[in-house]
């Protein structure tokens, strides 16, 4: 493989790309298969995909990845030849295998490799599937005694935990010799021996609280979870006077068939959802950036200080105390607690916020797959990925957005030839932008396709020429509305638009609008209210006031000398990276006279496609701020998009970065 060295990276990249594609397809196929267990085509597809993954990763010498793929391939071979039934337990195991492969590929694409993963237990779990479970009826009888049992919540929990750890579950049965005078203690001895190396979930008959009557203990069944070898388990039971030891594998699903299913909604939605929904009480953990927890940590610290302050005041009170003085001391503490509790509340809400990239990340792939399927050439551009939204919204947004994009691809964007004829760029473009505006998040999804057919919409809506185009176009959100004759398998009949609207309006209490110019394109705008606006901001100071600029709008900060400023009449400009961009002092925006020194700090702002240089007195710090809306009366010339308060009580004014466009325009 010496020659490979030269093209190693190239080859690796090609492998990663293809493997990612295979995994993506496999994901889709598995999800479909779960809904249609008997679909032969899907089974064959999955078999082919895992087979390809196995071969490719073996070629690249990623042996662990290959092993897992091989394990799955074997399972699907058995399913294909009807030797194995696609039960829920098996599906779960397959998904587990998929997860591991996905993780491995992630690692590989980040420059690592597929080592350091514990695949042994996974492979071992797949093994019993490949061995035909021996189920002569006698064994079934024995296991039935367990199946009829009602497990306690704690037992179900233990069983589930063991399964998640990758342990095998068995029914261990044995008999005690007839001539044994003390059957129960003997059974207990076996039980005890097993408990030393495994987890005995249940015993049959009950050994912990034994019913009277030695006869009961002639024949025993134990439900055991363990990752130990079969021989070890059997050896533990093999003491004097014990006969007919059998270790029968048990299928988790059969055992828990009475227990409520925990739906593993892994790949159906991109992000975790609301804390309080019933399904998610089962979820054990969520991911939170540590910096968000740091704030909370500090606040807890302050809380402790306030608490001890309170204790001191309380201890010092006696009949000599001056009530007025005590009252003022308590007032201080009360204010402090007020501030801290608000802060903690905000911190907690911050932990619920995730960047919208959680949803957006799926789109490039989506666009790629769909456009290739349709035979269209489309690119996607995404802005504002860092905009944060509440976790609970994430799930609800994925579908509407996906639908809008699919529509854009299916109906909006034209084929290359048509575009060229129209004088458009050969490749269609879909742009997605997210930004915070006041107390809302605005998300725009636009395409530069053929736009909505206003004629048809007017026709369908039965309106005459009275209504303006902008109003007519919103008819697409009414239920049952569709101007498409054909049903394409991608976006259906267009019935989706009303579902999209309902989702956004009812579920998310937001708003959705559409603008369209025939021949030019369509833009959907979705406005979502937020419980809290979190904005990662650059705080600057100017004329003694503090201002915050969203970091996603900040390209860079520079030192600007008086000599760097290009003045032409009453306009100033600045040369930034070989481009001349408008320059202004922050004071000017608020009609104050700037006091520029020989040098100031310049913030290179961007807003959509435009840039400008804003001069300030001082760069203070970068901070995650909770933005509160500002009343328009106080919002001078709408230069602000909100207000915030720092931990020490300082007020910070949040700049509306659309000022950049204004500056660029003149």
């Amino acid at each position: 493989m010496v020659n490979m060295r030269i093209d190693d990276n190239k080859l690796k990249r090609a492998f990663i790309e293809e493997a990612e594609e295979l995994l993506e397809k496999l994901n889709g196929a598995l999800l479909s298969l779960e809904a249609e267990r008997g679909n032969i085509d899907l089974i064959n597809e999955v078999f082919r995909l895992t087979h390809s993954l196995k071969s490719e990763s073996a070629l690249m010498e990623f042996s662990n990845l290959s092993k897992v793929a091989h394990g799955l391939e074997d399972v699907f071979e058995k399913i294909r030849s009807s030797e194995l039934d696609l039960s829920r337990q098996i599906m779960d195991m397959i998904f587990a295998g998929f997860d591991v492969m996905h993780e491995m590929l992630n690692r590989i694409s980040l420059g690592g490799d597929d080592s350091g993963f514990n695949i042994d237990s996974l492979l071992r779990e797949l093994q019993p599937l490949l061995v035909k479970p021996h189920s002569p009826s006698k064994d079934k009888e024995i296991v039935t005694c367990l199946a009829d049992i009602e497990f306690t919540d704690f037992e179900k929990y233990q069983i589930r935990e063991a399964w998640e750890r990758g342990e095998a579950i068995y029914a261990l049965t044995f008999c005690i010799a007839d001539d044994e005078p003390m059957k129960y203690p003997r059974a207990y001895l076996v039980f005890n021996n097993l408990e030393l190396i495994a987890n005995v979930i249940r015993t049959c008959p009950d050994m912990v609280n034994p019913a009277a009557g030695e006869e009961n203990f002639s024949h025993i069944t134990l439900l055991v979870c363990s990752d130990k070898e079969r021989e070890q388990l059997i050896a533990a039971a093999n003491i004097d006077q014990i006969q007919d030891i059998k270790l029968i594998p048990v299928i988790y699903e059969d055992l828990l068939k009475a227990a409520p299913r925990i739906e593993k909604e892994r790949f159906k939605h991109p992000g975790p959802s609301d804390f309080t929904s019933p399904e998610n009480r089962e979820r054990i953990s969520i991911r939170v950036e540590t910096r968000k927890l740091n704030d909370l940590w500090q606040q807890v610290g302050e809380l402790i200080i306030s608490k001890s302050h309170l204790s001191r005041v309380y201890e010092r009170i006696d009949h000599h105390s001056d009530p007025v003085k005590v009252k003022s001391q308590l007032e201080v503490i009360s204010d402090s607690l007020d501030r801290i509790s608000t802060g903690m509340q905000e911190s907690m809400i911050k932990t619920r916020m995730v960047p919208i990239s959680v949803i957006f990340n799926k789109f490039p792939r989506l666009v790629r797959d769909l456009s290739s399927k349709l035979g269209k050439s489309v690119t996607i551009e995404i802005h504002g990925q860092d905009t944060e939204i509440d976790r609970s919204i994430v799930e609800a947004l994925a579908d509407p957005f996906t639908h809008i994009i699919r529509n854009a691809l299916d109906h909006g964007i034209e084929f290359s030839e048509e575009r060229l004829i129209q004088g458009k760029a050969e490749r269609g473009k879909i742009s997605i932008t997210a930004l915070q505006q006041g107390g809302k998040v605005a998300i725009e999804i636009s395409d530069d396709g053929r736009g909505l057919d206003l004629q048809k919409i007017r026709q369908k809506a039965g309106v005459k020429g009275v209504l303006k185009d902008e109003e007519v176009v919103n008819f697409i959100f009414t239920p049952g509305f569709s101007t498409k004759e054909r049903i394409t398998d991608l976006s259906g009949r267009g019935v989706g638009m009303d579902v999209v609207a309902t989702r956004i309006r009812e579920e998310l209490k937001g708003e959705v609008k559409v603008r369209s110019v025939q021949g030019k394109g369509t833009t959907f705008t979705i406005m979502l209210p937020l419980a809290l606006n979190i904005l990662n901001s650059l705080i600057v100071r100017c004329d003694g006031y503090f201002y915050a600029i969203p970091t996603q709008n900040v390209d860079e900060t520079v030192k600007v000398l008086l000599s760097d400023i290009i003045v032409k009449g009453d306009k100033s400009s600045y040369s930034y990276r070989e481009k001349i961009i408008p320059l202004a002092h922050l004071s000017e925006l608020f009609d104050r006279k700037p006091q520029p020194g020989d040098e100031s700090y310049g913030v290179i702002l961007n807003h959509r496609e435009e840039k400008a240089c804003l001069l300030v007195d001082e760069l203070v710090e970068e901070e995650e701020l909770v933005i509160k809306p500002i009343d328009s009366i106080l919002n001078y010339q709408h230069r602000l998009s909100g207000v915030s308060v720092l931990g020490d009580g300082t007020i910070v004014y949040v700049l509306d970065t659309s000022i950049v466009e204004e500056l660029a325009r003149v």
Partner: protein
Amino acid sequence: MFRVLLVDDLSFMRMVQKDILSGSGYHVVGEASDGLEAVEVYESLKPDIVLMDITMPNMNGLDAVNRILVADPQAKIIICSALGQQKIIVEAINSGIKDFIVKPFKAERLLSAIAKALE
């Protein structure tokens, strides 16, 4: 050749046990007649296995088992008990004995219990 310690307050019982064991290739290296003595002798002799009675003066078998296992968690002890002492046996199992035999016992019972325990 495995070394055995016999503990029972009845010398006749120990004689019977010794007889059975010696005849099957076990070496009886010590005897004790109460729990206290059992703990001491175990310390000095460190046998491979102990046969322990329960009802004894000065210190009963159960306490002796606990003492020995605390000092030597790997100790292999088989309890010898009369019928009707199930609770005590269960307790002893929890303490960590390897097996138990019920009096009156058959020779083969004693031998197979010891053999299995020594595996």
